[in-house]
């Protein structure tokens, strides 16, 4: 099993959810995050003083999928969330050693299907 962690723009969230649902990747956890990579922040003036925002709001979607689904999930998310501008985001993949469904107690791949 692999964990797919995708950080991208808020406005893409609905499209990504729909697209993932279509390919059968059900279930995800979504958090609001702030971050920066190559994308610079911006400077405004508030009541005469400079205000620098260097961390931009993004959305983070985490899902745990079986190994055979990973590549399809990656290309779906990347394809849907891409705009071509700096700040599109990143996807990170990590190994998951165990998954447990709380309601049934089932473990392993059956727990994430």
């Amino acid at each position, binding site marked *: 099993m692999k964990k797919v962690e995708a950080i991208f723009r808020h406005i893409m969230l609905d499209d990504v959810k729909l697209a993932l649902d279509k390919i059968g990747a059900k279930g995800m956890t979504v958090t609001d995050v702030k971050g920066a990579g190559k994308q610079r922040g911006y400077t*405004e*003036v508030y*009541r*005469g*003083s400079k205000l620098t925002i260097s961390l931009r709001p993004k959305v983070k979607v985490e899902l745990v999928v079986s190994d055979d689904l990973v590549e399809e999930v990656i290309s779906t998310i990347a394809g849907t969330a891409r705009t071509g501008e700096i700040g599109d985001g990143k996807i990170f993949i990590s190994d998951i050693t165990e998954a447990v469904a709380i309601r049934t107690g089932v473990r392993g791949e059956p727990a994430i299907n």
Partner: protein
Amino acid sequence: MWKRLSVLLLLAVIMSLAVSAMPAFAGDPSGLKTGGKDAYDALYAGKSVKDAIGHTAVALNFVWVFLAAILVFFMQAGFALVETGFCRAKNAAHVIMTNFVIFAIGALAYWAVGFGLMFGGAHGIASLGGVAPLDGLFEVVKGWGIFGTKGFFLVGGAYDVGVFILFLFQMVFMDTAATIPTGAMAERWKFSAFCVYGVFIAAILYPIYGNWVWGGGWLAKLGSNLGLGNGYIDWAGSSVIHGVGGITALAGALVLGPRIGKFNKDGSPNAMPGHHLPMAMLGTIILAFGWFGFNAGSSLAATDLRISVIAVNTILAGAAGAITAMLYVWRRFGKPDPSMTANGMLAGLVAITAPCAFVGSVSAVIIGGIAGVLVVLSVLFVERVLKVDDPVGAISVHGACGIWGVVSLGIFADGTYGAGYNGVRTAVKGLLFGGTQQFYAQLIGAATAIVYTFAVAYVFFKVLDRVMGIRSAREDELVGLDIPEMGVLAYPEFEYRGADDDFQRQPSREIAE
């Protein structure tokens, strides 16, 4: 179908009978027949026509002052929303609490002591029936009143309908002044020390200067004593309320010091945006709404039709201030900052508060427009030059523009109103209309406001700081004052982050099961 038809026919018959029967009930739908001689006989039985007219006029004025008082009371909500919106979420419960409870503390302190000191000698207000019981004024020398000596706790002779309506009106004005420093001193003012301040400003600081201007004291008598126009005039309180409030705010903010993180080592300021701009804008609109009561109500008379001019001048000055502030900020910083636009409207309203009864609409727009630019320049000056931290701009909106307001009266008053004001026969005229004496009177009153208020307030805060400390603990300020000082979060369902996440402060006490 026949059943349905016969039901409809029955309804039609009943309705026509009802309609045709109506004239028999003999009401008065046009109002032309209600309240003539019969009302006079019923309400003023045995009284003369003069009695009836006098009573009715005073009654009309009582209703007017009452309406104005509740409008000004509602300004407390305006202040609460503006200040809370301009401060950070972690302090929201604290900021709104100070704005809320200042009203209660001030009301009681003013009832007990302040009103008597300010209006103890205020008899002679004809529009409210004379207010005869308030005939105690302490004068160092005849004609130079310093404070009142009657009306404490509103007992004895002060238990009088005229005194009470005057108290109601003046109390809400006092609470407007008292709540101004809560903005400039927000986010680091220890609540217990704030409560002591509340008693002091309502009982001593505000009423003394107020007596000098409105209570028959020496500033008002500069005309009859020294020939300076109609004496020092401040129609609704550009100096008495806003000047005093703003300058007290300056003194307090100086003693308190800036918020942690506001100024860098090289003295450059950091922006600390408010957490709820719509709340702050809504509060500004509520303040503008209440200002109709503030300025027009200060006539203390609905029978004085100048209230129409006052009301129009008020709202035009506010509009002008908003526009000039917006345009100036837009030009200078690139975008039309909503928070400065809101300050601009308030600046215009504050500035017109003194001259509103004595100027025409063109002057009102000019006065408000100048205030809109003045407030922006003042905010920058206070922050960049004086290095004083004022989260909401209270010192600039109320202090700077309040002083501009009383001075502008001495320039723009056009002589169309005010004959007899402060016991001087002639109408009120400013510099542009030949009234140099009035201008001098205004300068004296303004200078007095600045010197008196700053001296008394600064000494008070310094002493209070020595005695109990007026600033919140450093750890409390960093984490947010809501839990440490109030015991509640303003927004418990939302995660919030303190400015310094490294610092974990434990709850101050264990909850017993």
